[in-house]
């Protein structure tokens, strides 16, 4: 489908949001203290397209923190896949890139419809970056990889919004608001807004993905990992907040009747101590990444090198969430990578 | 009259904390009649020394898991007093609602789980599950509601999170407050049913009277639970008031050998604190609905029957629910919104008092110029009641002996008396000392 461009007056925005709310469960950025989160919207006033970055990435709308996979009872098990129609509104391009990665990873080899079903039922509307978060570096990471998975993209212009429609799902949005065709000037303006923001990140990588991947991989035995991770708490924050992390744990739990229950997956993180620990019997265990420096290294290896062949670029989109939310401030990929590149 | 009785109730059940009753009657003479408190002492005083003011209430809340909200509120008030913090009117109202929630929560626990089994002739609430399912389920439902009511504002009820010096750390949404109000209104059928249940066993409340002094927080504005001054009412109905800062002169703590908890007294040999004390002091300010209930029960101040404490608790449940509805209307009507914390203006010494389910509770702290705690003191209602319990027991035993009751019946009568006070013994053995480090 060809890209089509539309324009929405500033004053028509609220009714557009209401239209979307009627059509599906609407998730959009809202304020939480001085930060932002994606949340279900119950009033257009809550929507904050001027957000800088959210605490958790929007992947949670498709791949929730806790998700039942199978329910069980006396008669055996049953699939727990129950997607609902959702609109995920106001996603920055770097988070779209991350969702593209998850799309690929949950589809490759073995299709996981526990993810894909909700993905198919979600309409993704990207939005331009109006404010830049303090640790962002999306301008320089994985430049060759462009966002693909969204259905439409909305750009704030001085007097309203330009909406770019990319798919049939995106086209449906037009019926929820009073859109008019965009003028060439508006289209150009929107493109310029999105291009201009690209070199405004406070942090920058000074090398390309291939160079970085090779050098980081070669630094596997470097002492840096231990130095960097000296103050690491193994708290997993850098995993949990990352839009491209998708590891999970699976646990069973009974209901009160002690007969029925569910098998549930929950986000997990490779920084957590037991992530690679196995039981060997008679109380013996083996932890394949016992030292926190090993776990710390594994995450960065995964972001910068391990998945590159599959993804066509690094498994990091430069959102800066890990950088900003790691309390001892040691998780910033730019700092780690730059010091390896210099070293 | 029975000649020889030996009762030793070791670790009295269905009270919070450990208490023993020891009665020894030889040849008709009472040789020993003791209310003992052997709870393990826990040294809260040594714990708060050198801790930051923001942590102190979090520590002293752990004195008691049943009146954790009360301890937190009293502690925070004392700290605010020491730090020159005056909280906003909205905070006062919200905290009062929290206080009502705790009193109702605890009263319901006491009435349904601790007292009702005696009145239904069961050893505990569990045998009542099959025989009085409706009552037990209602009890659990109301208990859970009271918990949710307190948690909505305080974060949780056991060691509340949100009550901190300067105000509240987080707020419920306006919609949540409106919903709380609705649920309080919708509680009516359960309240009515509770009253009916109590009425059905009201004749089983023993009749026993002993004149004593009653102490409670008091205010001209309302039936004081969160704020007020100290007041006592004497058997002749005379009332006297003291500022909270003078709490030591009205409580006069002393140590007795049979107890890890300290005892107190004021004008008389002992005084009583708790629902009955509040009722006797502040009856006029009860919500009309609560008063109506008291009238139905032919329950009037001054009442000298300590067993009626549980009935006073029931009256307070109704009051707490109705007064909270009123307060919610006021808060919502005055443009409810989350407020910033009020910052400290000085560091010094301060006192705070609230009415917890079992009576008046005092906290006091001192802080150095870095905001670190230099010492503290805390007088707990159950301690204030120990002396009164002892004197009640001393008065009751001869009556029971004279009535030719057997040991089992005497034991039950004594246990029921102690339980009527709803003693919270875990908190009574906190052992905070009065002296301040300079």
């Amino acid at each position: 489908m060809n890209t089509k461009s539309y324009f929405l007056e500033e004053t028509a925005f609220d009714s557009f949001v209401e239209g979307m709310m009627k059509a599906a469960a609407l998730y959009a950025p809202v304020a939480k203290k001085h930060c932002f989160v994606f949340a279900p919207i119950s009033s257009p006033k809550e929507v904050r397209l001027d957000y800088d970055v959210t605490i958790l990435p929007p992947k949670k709308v498709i791949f929730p923190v806790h998700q039942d996979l199978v329910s069980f009872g006396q008669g055996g098990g049953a699939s727990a896949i129950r997607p609902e129609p959702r609109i995920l509104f106001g996603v920055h391009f770097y988070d779209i890139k991350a969702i593209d990665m998850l799309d690929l990873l949950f589809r490759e080899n073995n299709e996981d419809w526990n993810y894909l079903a909700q993905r198919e039922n979600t309409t993704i509307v990207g939005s331009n970056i109006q404010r830049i978060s303090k640790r962002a570096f999306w301008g320089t990471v994985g430049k060759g990889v462009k966002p693909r998975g969204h259905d439409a993209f909305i750009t704030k212009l001085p007097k309203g919004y330009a909406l770019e429609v990319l798919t049939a799902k995106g086209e449906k949005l037009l019926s929820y608001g009073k859109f008019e065709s965009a003028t060439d000037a508006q289209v150009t303006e929107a493109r310029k807004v999105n291009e201009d923001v690209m070199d405004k990140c406070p942090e920058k990588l000074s090398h390309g993905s291939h160079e970085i991947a090779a050098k980081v991989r070669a630094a596997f035995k470097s002492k840096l990992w231990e130095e960097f991770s000296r103050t690491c708490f193994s708290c997993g924050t850098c995993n949990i907040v990352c839009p491209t992390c998708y590891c999970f744990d699976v646990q069973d739990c009974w209901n009160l009747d002690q007969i029925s229950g569910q098998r549930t997956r929950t986000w997990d993180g490779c920084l957590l101590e037991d992530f690679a620990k196995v039981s060997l019997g008679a109380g013996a265990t083996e932890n394949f990444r016992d030292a926190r420096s090993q776990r710390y290294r594994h995450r960065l290896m995964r972001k910068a090198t391990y998945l590159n062949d599959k993804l066509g670029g690094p498994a990091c989109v430069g959102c800066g969430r890990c950088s900003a939310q790691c309390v001892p401030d040691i998780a910033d990929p730019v700092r780690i990578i730059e010091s390896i590149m210099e070293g | 009259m029975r000649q020889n009785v030996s009762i030793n109730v070791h670790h009295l059940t269905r009270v919070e904390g450990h208490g023993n009753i020891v009665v020894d009657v030889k040849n008709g003479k009472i040789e020993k009649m003791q209310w003992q408190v052997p709870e393990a002492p826990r040294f809260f005083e040594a714990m708060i020394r050198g801790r930051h003011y923001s942590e102190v209430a979090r520590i002293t809340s752990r004195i008691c898991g049943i009146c954790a909200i009360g301890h937190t509120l009293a502690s925070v008030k004392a700290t605010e007093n020491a730090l020159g913090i005056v909280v906003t009117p909205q905070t006062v109202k919200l905290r009062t609602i929290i206080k009502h929630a705790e009193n109702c929560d605890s009263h319901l626990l006491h009435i349904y789980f601790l007292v009702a089994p005696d009145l239904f002739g069961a050893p505990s609430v569990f045998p009542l599950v099959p025989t009085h399912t409706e009552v037990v389920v209602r009890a659990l439902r109301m208990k859970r509601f009271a918990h949710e009511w307190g948690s909505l504002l305080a974060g949780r009820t056991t060691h509340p999170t949100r009550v901190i010096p300067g105000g509240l750390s987080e707020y419920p949404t306006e919609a949540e407050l409106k919903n709380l109000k609705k649920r309080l209104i919708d509680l009516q059928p359960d309240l009515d049913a509770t009253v009916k249940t109590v009425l059905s066993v009201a004749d089983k409340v023993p009749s026993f009277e002993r004149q004593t002094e009653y102490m409670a927080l008091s205010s001209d504005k309302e039936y004081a639970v969160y704020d007020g001054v100290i007041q006592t009412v004497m058997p002749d109905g005379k009332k006297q008031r003291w500022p909270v800062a003078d709490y030591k002169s009205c409580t006069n703590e002393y140590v007795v050998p049979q107890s890890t908890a300290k005892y107190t007294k004021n004008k008389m040999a002992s005084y009583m604190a708790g629902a009955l004390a509040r009722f006797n002091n502040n009856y006029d300010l009860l919500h009309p609905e609560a008063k109506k209930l008291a009238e139905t029960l032919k329950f009037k101040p001054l009442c000298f029957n300590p067993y009626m404490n549980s009935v006073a608790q029931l009256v307070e449940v109704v009051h707490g629910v109705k007064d909270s509805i009123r307060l919610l209307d006021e808060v919502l009507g005055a443009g409810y919104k989350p407020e910033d914390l009020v910052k400290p203006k000085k560091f010094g010494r301060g006192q705070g008092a609230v009415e917890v389910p079992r009576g008046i509770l005092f906290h006091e702290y001192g802080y150095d110029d870095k905001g670190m705690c230099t010492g503290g003191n805390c007088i707990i209602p159950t301690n204030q009641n120990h002396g009164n319990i002892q004197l009640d027991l001393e008065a009751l035993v001869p009556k029971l002996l004279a009535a030719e009751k057997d040991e089992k019946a005497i034991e039950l009568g004594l246990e029921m008396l102690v339980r009527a006070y709803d003693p919270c013994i875990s908190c009574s053995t906190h052992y905070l000392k009065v002296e301040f480090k300079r």
Partner: protein
Amino acid sequence: MSVSIRFEETTYPNIFMPRPAEIVHARQDTAMEKHFTLKMKDGEPMIFDPGQMLEVSVFGFGEIPIGFASSPTRTQSFDIVVRKVGRVSGAVTALERGQTLYVRGPLGHGFPMDKLRGQDILVVAGGIGLCPTRSLILYILDRRSEFKNFSLFFGVKSPQEQLFLEDLALWRKSADVKFYETVDRPDDKWKGNVGVITTLFKKTQIDPGTRVIICGPPIMYKFVIAELDGIGVSRNNIYVDLERRMKCGIGKCGHCQINDEYVCLDGPVFCFKDIEHLEEAFR
């Protein structure tokens, strides 16, 4: 109490849905290991390669990866051996004949049979490493003519930990396999070799062209490989069967990753040459 829950049908395939298998035979092999023969309740044959695995589950307890322990030449039923080490394995080993286990699979890549056929074969199995390799061993014995020399080293800590006692008795006598066994800590009755598994290399001559399969506890690998290096066995001809924590078995959950390889997808059987450069593969 009877509980009926309503299961709504969904149109999406669910790769996490296990299928029921009936336990047609169950036997406690050692104090810790239990041997099960399973049959799919839907009657479907289980078609797998030696070295592949299953996700085996008991509802309420969870799911664990378990290797096939029987030869794929037998298709109507299949064997697994489970060592009781924790929650799920504890629940599985508590089951008896007639009860139901739930399985997903076969999963992963097994032994490259086309590369083993026509070759000398040595299997080095430590402890429970005999379970997944038993599948291969039985396969070779079933089709003995397709392979040349076949040797088997088996080591355990103590004689009580020996598994598949009937198999061992057969193999000791069999002319089809040169079987060598050892224990670290002997008891009074033990008459055989004493020492770690590498001491068995002194017992026989291994041709440098042999294809070698190694499966055992994590620390065993590097010692055995050092031994093979000494003999001159090409690292291209060494296959290792690895164990890692696993939660999905389908290459998603991330737990089994060794550098950039997923044990559940790319393994659990790897050609040593392909992973020797991976720092995380061996310690």
